[in-house]
């Protein structure tokens, strides 16, 4: 396929790049997507696929909530192998102190129109009989869902193609030039705008942006339908996600439509190797067993690792680089890439078409970290 001049060339066919491609192509822009390996092969493949609304900051809330609603609207059109399940989330409180945090969360979400409910110890046990005795309760967020992201990414790419987008795969970008992308065979893909949605690879193409790899482990079990019914997350998850220390684990478990249980989560900086770290995987499993004692006996069939693209302030980079108006970033989503992919895509499309976004775009603009971004 002869590369032609695109309105927008998107680097990366992960969930974020795929969503951007769909959003731009459906607006009539001529879109080219360049992917070095396979659709949804990076963090998209490794992650949990949890579509979750977060309250750790206004900016995080805005983005996750906006995106979650977009997913809810898209759900009916998703193919069955994208496995969209509205299982909801329960944020689990271990003690009275954490129940205070639960109530604060409820206030936060209710004030912003997100339906939630507080579960006391008894109703928590009724909702999830396999949780251990003695937990204080939790916050139920029924609008949260789970999805199998690689298939969702494929769906979004196909949608983009149906609007005329072209996919170049496998195709390695070696350089972002002033007017396009240089590929490793020397050829050039010309584009008016470029979107770097390359996840953990994005700093290779846009040196200087602060996106670091944050390694995670996951384990999946054989099929035990009904063992858990909601995505279960401990309140300590946020401490783990926000900690800048070298490594942490937090209880985060998900039921898949197949009846398999997906067990996470772990975070490590400064680790380049993809190999399983036995110690951290143990810590993660032990932490999960503390909440779900019966999990000990479930048959685990696979483990894997992945790298999240993490930024210094926990918010993604969405928007143009200050010095390069035609180069946009759509990266740095840490553990919320799948959730916020659709909103990210809308923000990108809005910026390309120079129209107002449904949520303020400033908190995510790369320009917010001025000194560190050089091109």
């Amino acid at each position, binding site marked *: 396929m002869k590369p032609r001049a695109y309105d927008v060339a998107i680097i990366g066919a992960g969930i974020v790049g795929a969503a951007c491609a769909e959003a731009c192509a459906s607006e009539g822009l001529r879109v080219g997507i360049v992917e070095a*390996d*396979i*659709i*949804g*092969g990076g963090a998209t*493949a490794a992650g949990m696929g949890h579509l979750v609304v977060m309250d750790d900051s206004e900016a995080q809330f805005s983005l996750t909530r906006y995106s979650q609603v977009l997913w809810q609207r898209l759900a009916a059109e998703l193919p069955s*192998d994208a496995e969209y399940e509205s299982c909801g989330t329960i944020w689990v409180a271990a003690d009275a102190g954490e129940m205070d945090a639960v109530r604060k969360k409820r206030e936060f979400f209710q004030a912003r129109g997100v339906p939630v409910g507080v579960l006391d110890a008894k109703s928590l046990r009724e909702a999830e009989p396999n949780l251990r005795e003695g937990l204080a309760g939790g916050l139920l967020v029924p609008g949260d869902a789970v999805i199998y992201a*690689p*298939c969702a990414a*494929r769906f979004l790419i196909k949608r983009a193609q149906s609007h005329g987008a072209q996919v170049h795969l496998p195709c390695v970008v070696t350089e972002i030039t002033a007017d396009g992308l240089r590929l490793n065979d020397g050829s050039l893909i010309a584009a008016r705008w470029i979107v770097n949605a390359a996840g953990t690879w994005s700093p290779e193409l846009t040196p200087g942006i602060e996106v670091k790899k944050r390694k995670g482990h996951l*384990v999946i*079990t*054989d099929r035990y339908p009904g063992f858990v019914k909601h995505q279960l997350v401990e309140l300590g998850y946020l401490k783990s996600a926000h900690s800048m220390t070298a490594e942490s684990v937090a209880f985060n478990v998900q039921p898949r439509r197949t009846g398999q249980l997906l*067990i996470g989560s772990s975070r490590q900086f400064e680790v380049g190797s993809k*190999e*399983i770290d*036995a110690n951290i*995987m*143990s810590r993660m*499993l*032990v932490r*999960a*067993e503390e909440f779900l004692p019966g*999990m*000990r*006996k*479930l*048959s*685990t*069939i*696979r*483990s*894997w690792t992945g790298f999240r693209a993490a930024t210094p302030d926990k918010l993604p980079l969405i928007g143009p680089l200050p010095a390069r108006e035609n180069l946009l970033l759509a990266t740095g989503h840490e553990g919320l890439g799948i959730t916020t992919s659709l909103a990210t895509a809308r923000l990108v499309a809005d910026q390309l078409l120079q129209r107002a976004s449904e949520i303020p775009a400033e908190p995510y603009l790369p320009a917010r970290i001025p000194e560190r971004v050089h091109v």
Partner: protein
Amino acid sequence: MSNGDRSFDLIVVGAGPAGIAAACSAAESGIHAAIVDNSPGPGGQIWRGESRTQNSREAASWYKRLITSGVDILTATEVFDQREAGKISAESANNLCQLSYKKLIICTGARERFLPFPGWTLPNVIGAGGLQALVKSGLAVSGQKIVIAGSGPLLLAVAAYLTEHGADVRVIGEQAPWSRLARFSFSLVFQGRKVLQSFQLRRQLSGISYRAGCWVVEAEGNGRIESVTLRSGAKTWKEPCDYLACGFHLVPNTELAALLGCERRAGFVRVNNFQESSIAGIYCAGEPAGIGGLELSLVEGQIAGYAAAGQREKAQKYFGERRRLRRFADALQRTFALRNELSTLPGSETIVCRCEDVSFGRLREYSSWRAAKLQTRCGMGPCQGRICGPAVEFLFGWKTEFVRPPIFPVAAEMLAGGTGAERN
């Protein structure tokens, strides 16, 4: 649940012929050794149940040697991980065993290769070795009509065994062409003992139609197999049957070797003259180092056992015999190479991944194993790609990726390293 932490100078993983030979050789040198196997008893596949039934004099003699050697025999013990160098994690009767070693010999054997064809998932379509294993484990096949098909010398051995147990073997369909089989028979002349074996086999199998250049096109039946459609040259016909025993020769069980980081070449574990892998102190003998059959497994096992025990001169005495047997093994591989027609057998709806019910038609959309896996979940089930992996390699040329723990499904508490009390 108790934590069984044990230490040995040498651990042999796999108690088939190679493992038994390795363990005996090493232990007789005074080394403190254990042999580990996930089956309820030793013997691997070819000597399954021999400790009880005593059908093979050779097996009985080796088994006796094993018992008297003082080797710790740990059966129903399945190795699933190595968390730190020199210490493998195994599960036995719902207990975690962390087994430390100074030297390790991988004798994990081989498994049958399965290729998909329409109807292959019907009940009573079983591997050739698989059906033999089932009969050895208590299944009665007396009077049952059996078609044996696929490829490899195993088909003949299984036919003889099933006939001995009263089955009515209707036909043996070997996909390799006559021309290749004829060359192989000729080479048997140079393998003394094998000529005798094949003569005995011929006597046992007289009356059974053995067709070369013949393969299964489809298995038919309602809820279980009722007939098989076979093709041979221009001829296609239906054979009613109660069982179809179908396997396409063997693929090596290299998952443990891969987990430990041993280099592989063309799918087999790379070893030096002393059967030592690319990792010092880790040896490999038998099928994972190259499919070669019983005698070669015994010889390689002895070489590895002596070498691991520091008895290199004793090991070297077997080099000549190994050379001769390897020539036979190479001839074996060439003879039973898979013909192209077998890749045309699956239809669009034919299941390729049995764990996740992924059809051939869905897989055809992808150009890499990784993309196919991610999009369809082929290979992501409990068999961890052991069945569909060799099939997709043959059908699409896709090679499997690196291996991660657990190499067998295991309870979460095992993967985590035991209960809280036992963990450091």
